[in-house]
């Protein structure tokens, strides 16, 4: 396990905070770590900041994320990684589509060529909106409390997706699956970062697999081409015990 002192904490929303720490490692956009809250649990977290100062942006969701979000500067974070196949970085115009805490893994890709489409349930949960250049971001909320009312697809309606050299997306599987079906019809380059239960992070336990591909090793980012052969994507997955269930 690697350990590092938390040097700063930023509260982004009532349920989301960013924890900063020093870690001298080469991390690429889209990669993640397994973060350990001793005595509670260990969960996958994307690195939202990958410069010399690293950080993850955690949403209070259940016992482990709850424990992590309570950590204060001076306390230690424990983690292992980095793991996973990063997003392919391209020159040119990019579209970043993030749902909920999925924005965390897209954060390192924000630059002046990036256009953002942020999907949130409500106004308070919008992440990183101000980090895009002005005029280069669009927001949808489920409850219409900010931006366009509706889901990600509503936000895409009048966007010319062909105009981007690469589309990156991260969020709940159902959102990604709908996005995938929408983009499949167009001729676009896109990489989707999926989210599934992860127990080991190193490609042995099978808890994160989709059609035989391990999200923790072959993913979490997949291209449109790879996704087209995955009939489990958006339909079925295994629970913590390994029971096959529908994705929603």
């Amino acid at each position, binding site marked *: 396990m690697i350990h590092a002192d938390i040097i700063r904490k930023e509260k982004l929303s009532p349920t989301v905070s960013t924890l900063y720490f020093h870690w001298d490692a080469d991390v690429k956009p889209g990669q993640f770590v397994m973060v350990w809250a001793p005595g509670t649990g260990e969960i996958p977290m994307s690195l939202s900041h990958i410069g010399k100062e690293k950080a993850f942006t955690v949403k209070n969701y259940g016992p482990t994320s709850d424990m992590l979000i309570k950590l204060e500067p001076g306390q*230690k974070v424990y983690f292992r990684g980095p793991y996973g196949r990063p997003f392919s970085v391209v020159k040119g115009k990019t579209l970043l589509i993030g749902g909920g805490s999925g924005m965390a893994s897209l954060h390192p890709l924000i630059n002046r060529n990036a256009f953002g489409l942020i999907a949130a349930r409500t106004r308070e949960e919008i992440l990183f909106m101000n980090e895009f250049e002005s005029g280069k971001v669009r927001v949808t909320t489920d409850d219409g409390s900010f931006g366009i009312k509706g889901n990600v697809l509503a936000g895409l309606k009048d966007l010319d997706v062909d105009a981007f050299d690469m589309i990156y997306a991260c969020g709940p599987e159902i959102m990604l699956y709908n996005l995938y079906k929408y983009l499949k019809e167009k001729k676009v380059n896109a990489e989707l970062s999926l989210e599934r239960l992860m127990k*080991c992070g190193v490609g042995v336990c099978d808890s994160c697999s989709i059609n035989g591909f391990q999200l923790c090793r072959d993913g979490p980012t997949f291209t449109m081409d790879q996704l087209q052969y995955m009939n489990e994507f958006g339909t079925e997955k295994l629970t913590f015990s*390994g029971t096959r269930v529908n994705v929603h």
Partner: protein
Amino acid sequence: MQLESPLILASGILDENGYTMRRILEEGAAAVVTKSIGSTERPGFTPPVVAELGENLLNAIGLSNPGIEHFADEISIAKGIRKPVIGSIFGASAEEFSTLASKMESYGADAIELNLSCPHVKGFGSEVGSDPDLVEEIVTEVKAKVSVPVFAKLTPNVTDIVKIAKAAEKADALVLINTVKAIHIDIYARRPTLSNAYGGLSGPAIKPIGVRAVYDVYRETSKEIIGCGGISNFEDVIEYMMAGARAVEVGTALKTAGRAIFDNIKTDIIRFMEAEGLDGIQEIIGAGVKR
């Protein structure tokens, strides 16, 4: 059971989801063993369930499984490609094992592997598998119940593995070895890394222990042996076979080498056979054992 190569995927590694097993078979494994399945659904332990110790791994997944009733689908998905799928099962009594075994057989499993060796769950695995009488009873009952081959997977965490091997004599083959009971403590967090504290050590560290078990049992019994523990390249496979194994199971090495490991090792074994002038790989079984 016919195998196209001696290379089998070990139980508990990438074999909970039928699609994953199928992919591993497509990408080169001669057979797969499923994750160990019990009578009822078990969530297993809370993560951390693995600790990376260099190339080695410490794990206490905790026998998480959906329960035998929910496993039929995974077997049939895996069997989409015509290669053997071996159903691993765990239980606390001979009766439980034999019920599980017939279910597995009815799902289409080509063989049954009895997990008598998982080192980290109370009441199962090595607790069962270190009692020779219980081992004998379980093997006998399962053999009476199913017609597919039955493998007994034994634990190295005993004073005398030969004694247990002899107790499991009625099995069609013995799988040697499961993980070695171990602990890792995180000195900064001041607690065991695994939520369960105790785990099973796998990977290169345990290879000499596994080879020893195979060597011992090969010398002292006439049972067929499947070697397991720390195999990560063709030399390891040959070493296990020279110690007496007919086939091998590969687990932890997938962490470092990925699913391609089966094809890569196969290529290397063929090269070795050519260099050493071997007609069939069977020639080397037991060739390294001093009698």
